């Protein structure tokens, strides 16, 4: 009897349980389709709370010069916070402007964090932080050859996505708009084209401003969304983390449910069959 009650529970809770619809990257399954960037949180406590509210399992970190004074002052290490939260670390190569620097940074991150996963960033422009595509492709190729699981942050270019897939990247991560701009997805058409162009996990990586942007990304066919500033710089980051979590789930459900086509004119949802004859007006 207990079984019968339990099997009916999912009807009352339409959200897929963790593990039911996993995100798989390089053979690794994640219950959450929301990746969290750790940049911008004003305290480790806030970051911890946002991680919990977002239910993310994969978070990005940067590699920077150590501050021994800070550690001695008891500020604690980010690594301790993240391992305490039970999330996987995805090191990035933020701030690198050449393939050489990005490759070296990825190798240092592998030493530091004992992971061969890397979010590959090679920046080509200071104002927009847009990626330098030729350097990105070069770095991706070298890192794949060296055994890395490469997740490149890229422009929303379907041809580049195919080239990055060809050199062996584990996913592609196009921007919706520039990093931290909160402008959302400026060219949804390109994101949809990238979905068609590659058979790899597709992660919308930058430009998310609010929950509807994350939902749109998923509706366009993205497998996951990476949000950083949209959460960390919101007025209430923990609340926004919860919003993003729900938006990613809603967008995924909508995508897999299959939306109705857009039409120019109305299509009645109520049949005319059996309409009463109410006489002349």
């Amino acid at each position, binding site marked *: 009897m207990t079984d019968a009650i339990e099997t009916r529970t999912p009807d009352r809770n339409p959200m897929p349980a963790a593990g039911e619809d996993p995100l798989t990257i390089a053979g690794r399954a994640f219950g959450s389709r929301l990746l969290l960037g750790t940049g911008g949180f004003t305290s480790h406590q806030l970051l911890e709370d946002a991680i919990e509210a977002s239910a993310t399992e994969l978070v990005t970190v940067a590699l920077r010069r150590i501050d021994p004074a800070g550690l001695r002052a008891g500020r604690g290490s980010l*690594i301790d916070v993240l391992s305490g939260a039970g999330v996987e*670390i995805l090191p990035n190569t933020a701030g690198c402007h050449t393939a050489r620097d990005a490759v070296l940074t990825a190798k240092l991150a592998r030493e*530091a964090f004992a992971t061969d996963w890397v979010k590959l960033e090679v920046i080509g422009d200071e104002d927009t932080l847009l990626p330098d595509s030729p350097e990105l492709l070069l770095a991706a190729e070298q890192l794949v050859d060296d055994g890395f699981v490469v997740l490149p942050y890229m422009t929303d270019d379907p041809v580049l996505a195919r080239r990055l897939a060809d050199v062996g990247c584990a996913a592609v991560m196009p921007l919706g708009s520039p990093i931290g701009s909160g402008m959302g997805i400026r060219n949804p058409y390109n994101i949809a084209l990238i979905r068609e162009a590659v058979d790899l996990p597709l992660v919308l990586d930058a430009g998310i401003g609010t929950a509807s942007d994350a939902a749109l990304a998923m509706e366009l066919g993205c497998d996951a969304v990476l949000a950083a500033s949209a959460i960390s710089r919101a007025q209430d980051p923990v609340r926004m983390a919860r919003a993003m979590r729900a938006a990613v789930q809603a967008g995924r459900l909508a995508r897999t449910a299959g939306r109705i086509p857009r039409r120019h004119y109305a299509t009645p949802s109520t049949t005319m069959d059996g309409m009463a004859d109410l006489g002349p007006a």
Partner: protein
Amino acid sequence: MIAVNGQSSDVRAGETVAGVLVRLGLRADTAGVAVAVDGEVVPRGEWPSFVLAEDARVEVLTAMQGG
């Protein structure tokens, strides 16, 4: 002069990478740390044996918040 994280330091040629970490107040087995000398990665296992030359540039890096 040996530079550590872009700052001039008291580290002398002949000292090891592990010695630099001790000077920074870090244990040799500190998690989440990587070291580069003159733009090359020094694997953790080589920290005790890697001897620094005069004018070496040492970078000691760790995780920081970032997108």
